[in-house]
C-alpha cells in the first residue's frame, strides 16, 4: 500500500464552514441537494466530453446503522489533478468553467461551494472516483474537515464518483431512507437525469414534469398534472391545476394548483417551489404569487432567475418581477379557463375559497369580472350571491356596518330583505364595486345618505309638519315626513353623530384630556358642523296610526294617550338603534309615560259595538 500523500487546501476553512453551516444553509438537506447537483453536473460533463456511450444515473444510499450517506454517479469522475484543483479549492467549481466553454444550460452549479457543504454535516467525507480520462485508476479522497485531505489509490470501480458522508450525530436524520426519498422527490422533481434511492428500481423523479410531456390526451394530461401537484404538495389536496407558460420577457414554465381545503379570506397558504436548471432552489417563494392567492401553490422553473449566494432565495431583480407578473397573468387566465371548461372543479373552488376570492376580486379587475356573479356575500339571511341580494332588495344592495342584532336588522328582517354584513372581510368593498360596475345602488344603513334612501322624504303641508313636530319631537330632534316600508312601523329615530362629536370636542372637558395643539385642529373642523339638530325623527306617512293622528289633529293635543304612546315609541326605537344615548336615557321616563297612557286607555270606557 502506498503512503497517502498529505496536502492542504489553500484557504482557512474554519470561518467559512461556520458561515456555510450557520448562515447560508438552513437545513442539512441543502447539503444533500448540493451533492446531488454535483453528481448531475458530473454526468453532464461526461456527456459533453466523453465520446463513449454511458447510462447517466445518480443513486443515493444511506446506512442508518453506520450513520452514512453516499451519493454515487456514473459521471465523468476526477483525476488526481482535478481533485486538487476543483474539490479542494473554494469557489473554483469546474461547472462554471464548463458552462463558459460549452454554453450548456444543463449545468446547475454556480459558485463552486457545493462540495464543501458536505463538511457542514459530516465528520468525515470519502470520495472514490474513476475518471473517464483514466478508467484504470481509482482514487480515494478523504478528509475530516476539508482543511486537510488525503488522496490514495483505491480498489477499482467503474467510471464515476461516490461521495460518502459519515454524518455528524445531529444530522443522522439524513440516513433515514423514507425521509431521504421524500426530500429528493422535491429537490429532483425536474432533474432530467434519474435519481434513485437505496435499491429502488424506479427513480424518484421518474414522472416528468407535466409541461414537458408533449401532447398528452386531455384527460391524461389532467391526471398527470394532478399527480405532479400531489407529489409536491405537502399540506393540501390539489383541487385543479393551472399551467404557467412562457410570456413576454420570461421563460417561466410550471404548474399552479388550487387547494381543496376551505380557507378564510385572509389565510395565506401560498407556496411555490422554484427550480432553476432543474434543481429546487426555493421551496417557499410565495412572494412570486400574487398576494391575494392564499389558496394557491405551485412549482415553476426559469433559467432567468438568479439565486442569492445562500442558494436558497432569489434575487429581486427585473427577471424576478417579470416572473411574478407572468405567474399572476397565468393564474387569472387559468381561473377563467377552469370556469369555462371544468364546471365541477370551478364550483368547488368557489365553495372552498369564496372569502379569499372576494378579496382577490378587489385586487384584479379581470377576476372581478369573472367572479362578480359567482361569489356569495355574508348577509343577515346567510351567504347569498349578490344577484339574490339585489333582487330581494328590489335592485338595491343594503349593507350595514353595525353590530349584528341592531335595529336595522330587525327592520329588514321584517321586510324579508337581506342586509349585507359590511363588517365581514371584503363584503362592503365587493358590493360597492359590484354596484359601480354592474349598476345598482349600495345603501349603507346608518349613514346620512343611506337613511335618505331607506326613508325617502315625502311632501307634507307645513301645518301638518308643525303639528307632528309639536306632538312627537323633543328639543334637538328634527321631524322628517317620509314614506317607507314596512307601513306598520310609525317612526324611526336616527342620531346625528357629527353633532355629538362637536358637542364633545367643543366642551371644556375636552381641554383636560387632549393637548391644546391637537384640540385646536379638531375645533377647526367641528366649527363647521351644524349642531342645531342631534337626531332626525323619520315619521312614516304610510303608517295607519300616523294617518289617523293627522286626520284627527284638530281634536288632539300632546296629552292624548295615543300621542304619549307614540312618543314613548320614539324612546324605544332609539334604544334599539344603540346610539341615541340621549333618548336611551329617557327610556325610564318613556316607560312611565307608556304605562300612564295604557292606564288612561284602560280607564276610558270602550264605545258600545
Amino acid at each position, binding site marked *: 500500500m502506498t503512503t497517502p500523500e498529505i496536502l492542504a487546501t489553500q484557504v482557512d476553512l474554519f470561518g467559512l464552514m461556520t458561515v456555510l453551516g450557520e448562515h447560508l444553509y438552513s437545513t442539512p438537506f441543502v447539503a444533500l441537494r448540493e451533492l446531488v447537483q454535483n453528481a448531475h453536473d458530473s454526468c453532464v460533463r461526461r456527456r459533453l466530453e466523453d465520446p463513449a456511450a454511458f447510462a447517466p444515473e445518480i443513486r443515493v444510499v444511506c446506512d442508518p446503522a453506520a450513520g452514512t450517506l453516499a451519493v454515487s454517479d456514473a459521471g465523468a469522475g476526477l483525476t488526481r489533478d482535478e481533485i486538487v484543483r476543483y474539490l479542494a479549492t473554494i469557489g473554483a467549481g469546474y461547472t462554471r468553467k464548463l458552462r463558459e466553454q460549452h454554453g450548456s444550460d444543463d449545468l446547475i452549479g454556480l459558485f463552486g461551494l457545493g462540495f464543501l457543504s458536505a463538511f457542514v454535516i459530516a465528520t468525515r467525507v470519502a470520495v472514490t472516483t474513476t475518471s473517464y480520462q483514466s478508467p484504470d485508476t481509482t482514487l480515494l479522497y478523504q478528509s475530516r474537515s476539508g482543511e486537510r485531505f488525503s488522496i490514495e489509490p483505491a480498489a477499482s470501480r467503474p467510471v464515476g464518483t461516490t461521495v460518502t458522508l459519515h454524518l455528524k450525530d445531529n444530522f443522522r436524520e439524513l440516513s433515514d431512507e423514507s425521509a431521504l426519498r421524500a426530500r429528493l422527490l422535491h429537490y429532483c422533481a425536474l432533474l432530467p437525469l434519474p435519481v434513485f434511492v437505496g435499491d429502488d428500481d424506479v427513480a424518484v423523479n421518474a414522472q416528468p414534469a407535466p409541461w414537458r410531456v408533449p401532447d398528452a390526451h386531455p384527460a391524461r394530461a389532467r391526471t398527470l398534472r394532478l399527480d405532479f401537484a400531489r407529489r409536491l404538495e405537502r399540506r393540501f389536496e390539489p383541487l385543479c391545476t393551472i399551467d404557467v407558460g412562457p410570456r413576454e420577457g420570461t421563460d417561466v414554465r410550471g404548474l399552479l394548483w388550487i387547494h381543496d381545503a376551505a380557507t378564510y379570506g385572509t389565510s395565506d397558504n401560498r407556496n411555490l417551489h422554484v427550480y432553476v436548471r432543474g434543481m429546487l432552489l426555493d421551496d417557499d417563494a410565495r412572494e412570486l404569487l400574487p398576494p391575494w392567492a392564499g389558496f394557491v401553490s405551485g412549482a415553476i422553473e426559469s433559467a432567468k432567475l438568479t439565486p442569492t449566494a445562500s442558494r436558497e432565495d432569489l434575487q429581486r431583480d427585473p427577471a424576478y418581477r417579470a416572473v411574478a407578473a407572468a405567474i399572476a397573468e397565468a393564474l387569472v387566465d387559468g381561473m377563467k379557463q377552469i370556469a369555462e371548461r371544468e364546471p365541477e372543479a370551478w364550483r368547488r373552488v368557489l365553495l372552498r375559497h369564496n372569502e379569499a376570492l372576494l378579496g382577490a376580486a378587489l*385586487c384584479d379587475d379581470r377576476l372581478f369580472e369573472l367572479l362578480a356573479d359567482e361569489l356569495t356575500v355574508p348577509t343577515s339571511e346567510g351567504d347569498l350571491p349578490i344577484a339574490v341580494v339585489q333582487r330581494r332588495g328590489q*335592485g338595491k344592495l343594503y349593507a350595514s356596518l353595525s353590530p349584528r342584532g341592531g335595529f336595522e336588522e330587525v327592520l329588514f328582517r321584517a321586510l324579508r330583505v337581506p342586509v349585507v354584513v359590511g363588517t*365581514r372581510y371584503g363584503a362592503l368593498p365587493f358590493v360597492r364595486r359590484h354596484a359601480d360596475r354592474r349598476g345598482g345602488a349600495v345603501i349603507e344603513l346608518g349613514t346620512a345618505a343611506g337613511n335618505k334612501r331607506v326613508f325617502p322624504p315625502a311632501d307634507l303641508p307645513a301645518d301638518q309638519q308643525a303639528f307632528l313636530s309639536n306632538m312627537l319631537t323633543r328639543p334637538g330632534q328634527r321631524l322628517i315626513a317620509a314614506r317607507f316600508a314596512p307601513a306598520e312601523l310609525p317612526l324611526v329615530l336616527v342620531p346625528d353623530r357629527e353633532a355629538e362629536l362637536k358637542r364633545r370636542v367643543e366642551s371644556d372637558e375636552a381641554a383636560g384630556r387632549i393637548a391644546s395643539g*391637537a384640540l*385646536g*385642529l379638531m375645533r377647526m373642523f*367641528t366649527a363647521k358642523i351644524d349642531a342645531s339638530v342631534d337626531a332626525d325623527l323619520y315619521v312614516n306617512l304610510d303608517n295607519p296610526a300616523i294617518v289617523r293622528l293627522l286626520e284627527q289633529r284638530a281634536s288632539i293635543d300632546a296629552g292624548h294617550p295615543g300621542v304619549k304612546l307614540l312618543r314613548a315609541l320614539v324612546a324605544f326605537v332609539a334604544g334599539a338603534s344603540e346610539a341615541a344615548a340621549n333618548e336611551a336615557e329617557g327610556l325610564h321616563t318613556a316607560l312611565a309615560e307608556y304605562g300612564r297612557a295604557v292606564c288612561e286607555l284602560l280607564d276610558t270606557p270602550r264605545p258600545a259595538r
Partner: protein
Amino acid sequence: MDIWQWVHDIDPELRRGGHVRLADLIRRIPSATVDDHHDRVDALAPEALALARAAGLPWVEVFVRHWHLQSRVLHRCQGDMALGEAVALVDYAHGEAARGCPQAVCTVQDLAACYSQVDGPGWARERADVSRETLARIDPTWPCFTCISCEHAGALREQGDPQAALEFLDAQHKQLVAAGQGREGTSLLPERISCLIALGRTDDALAACEDAIANGRRDESQRRARQIDLARIYARLGRGDDALRHLPVPADILPTPSHYDPYTDALVHLVRIGAWPNGFELGRLLQRFIARLQLNGSHRLPFDIAAAAADLAIQRGSPEVAALHLAAMERLAARLHRPGSAPERLAALRLSLETALAQPRGERPDDPEERLRDCVAADPAAVAADPSAHARRHAAALLDLGFAREAADLLERHVDAHPDDDDAVELLEVAYRHAEDDDRHRALGERLLASADPAKQRRGRWVSARRHTRARDWDAANRLLAQLAEDPADALAARLAHAGNARQQRDWPTVLRLVDEALQLQPDLAPGAYDWDRMVAATFLGAWDRVRHSAARLDMEIDGEGPIDLRWELCRIRVEHPSGKRQDLYAARTGPVTARILQISRIDQPQRLFDQVVFDARPLGSHEDDDGQPVYLYAEIDPLHRAGYRAFSIDGVHPGEAALGDLRRVVQAHRGSFQVQSGDRYRLTSPAGEERPGLYAFAAFGPDADLRAASDALAAVIARLGDPLVWPELAAAAGDDARAQQHRELARAWML
C-alpha cells in the same frame, strides 16, 4: 411605550381569549398598509373594527382605526375626506374608554397628517405646534418618535425652511443615538432625502437614499418611494438611464396617491433632460393624479401638480391644456388655508400662458390635445353653424384627456342652451360618472325638470329616469318614463326603457303591455332583447300567441296554438333554493324560454324535479357534452309549474349492480326517479371496521305516490342482503315509524 411590543404581547392574549381572527387581522392591516395594498386594508378594517368592539377592546379599536387612517391619509392622501374620522378618533383615543392607549399619540399624528393632505404648507405652523407638543410627551424609545420627528421636519420644510428641518433631523438622530436607538435613525432618512433635494444637495440626497435602500424599511411602499426618489435624484444629476431604470411604472403607483407628487417631480426633471417624452400621455397621467387628489379633498398637492402640468403643457405647445390647469389651480387656491406662494405662481403662469397663446400656432402631432386645440380655436362661424357637433367634439376631447369635470361644465352650458341635443345630454351623464359627481347629475335632472321650457322638461325626465334606473329607484324612474311615453316623440323609447325596468322588477303584466304597445306603435321594429322579455312575460301570463309572435320575429317558428311544451335540446338551469343557495340542474328545454328539470335537486330544499321553469335566455355559460354539443346554462326566473315531487336519500353499502337495477325499477314502478349520487370513491367502514363500497342515491316520488308501498318494495329488494341500505326520511314520510327508527340506528352504527 412600544406599540409593537404591545401588539406582540396582545397576540397570544387574544388567541387565548378565542379572538384568533382579530389577532390575525391586527397583524395584517399594518402590513397591507405599508405594502400599498389599500384595497385589502378596506376589506379587512371593518371586520377588525367590529370584532374589537364586540370584544370590548378599546385599545384594539384605536389600533385598527389608526391603521385604517394611515392607509387613507398617509398613503391615499385623503384630506377633507378623512378629516371627520381623524377628529373622531383623536376624541375617542383620548376618552375614558381608551384611557392610557399607547396609540393615542399616533391619532394626533393622523389628524396633523390629514391637514397636511388638505394643505401641507398652509397648515405647516399648526402641524409643527402639534408635533412639538407630542414630542414633548414621548422619548426616543417610542417607535413613533421617528414618525413624529419626520412629521415635524416635514412641517418645517413646508414652511419654506428645509435647512431648519435638516438640523432638526440631525438633533433627533443624536437623541436616538444617545438613547441607544441609533439603528432607528434610518426611519428619518425619507424626510432627510426630501430636505436635501429641496436644498439642492443632490449628491448628499443620493447617499441618503442609498443608505435608506440598504438599511431602511423594506415594505413595498417604502421601496417604491425610494425608487421614485432615486429617479428624482438621477434626473437632477442628468443620469436619465439610471433614473428610468428605477422609476416604477405608472400602474404600480396609481393606487397610492402619496407617490403622485414625487413621481411628478421625477417626470418633470426627466422631461427637462430629454429622457421622457413631453407628450399628451404625460399630460393625461398628470391629470389623473390631479383629479384623484381633488376627489380626495386634497387641495395643495393637486395645485402643485397642476402647476407642473401647466408648464409642461406650455412647453409642448398645448396652451389650451395649460389654461385648463390654470382654471383648476384658481379654484384650488381659493380653498387653501394659507395661500403662501400660490398667488405668485398663478400670476407667473398667467403671464407665460398669455405669451404662449399669443404665439402663432405651431406644428403638433395629431393627438387628443390637438383635437382639443382645434375645438378651442374653431372658427366662430363654423361653431355657430353646428353648435351641437362642436360642443360634443369639444367635450369628447376633454374627456379623452381626463378633464371630466371640465367636460361636464361645458356640456351643462350647452345643454342649457340646446335642450334638444339628446346626444349631448347623454355625454353629459357620462362626464358626471367619470367625474364621480352624482350630486351634479341629480341637480341637472332637477333643474331641467323645473324649467318652464317643455323641451328642457323632457330632457330632465330622461336624465332623471336614467339616473333613477341606475340607482334602481324603480318607482321614480317609471313615473318619469310613463310621462315621457305620452309624448309621441318618446312613445317608443320610453316604453321600451320602462319595459326593461319592469323586467327587472318582474312585473310581467307591465312588460307584456309595454312591449305589445311598442310593437303596435312600430310593427317593423327590429327584433331585440325586448322580444325575449316579452316571451318570458307572455309565458308567465299564458299569452301563448304573443310567445309565438315574438319567437317568429326571432326566426323560431312554433306551430300550433296554446301552451308550448316541446322537446328541444338538453340544457342546465341554475335554480335558486329558498335558502338562497343555487344549484345547476340538467333540464330539457321545452320552448324558447322554458325547460323541465330532469335532475333531482338538493333534498334539504323543496324538490325541483320535473318542475317546468321559465328561464332567462341569456346563457350564463356552456360546456360540451360527450358528442361535442354545447349544453347551455341558463338562470331560472321563476317556476311555471311545480311538479311537487319529494326526494329522499338512500344510503349504505353498495348492493351490487343487479340489486341496484332492482331498486331503480321499484322506484320507477312508483312513477318515481332514482339517481345515484356517489362514485367509486365513496367507501364505508362497517361497525367491525371492514371497508365496503358505498352507495348514496336519491329517490324522488310524485305527490300522489304511495310512499309506504314504495318503501316496502325497496325493503323487499334488499331483504336478502347482509349489509344495510337505509332511507329513514322516506320511511318516516311513509308513516312507517318502526322502519324509520331502525334505519336511523343503522345509520348511526355505520356512521352514514
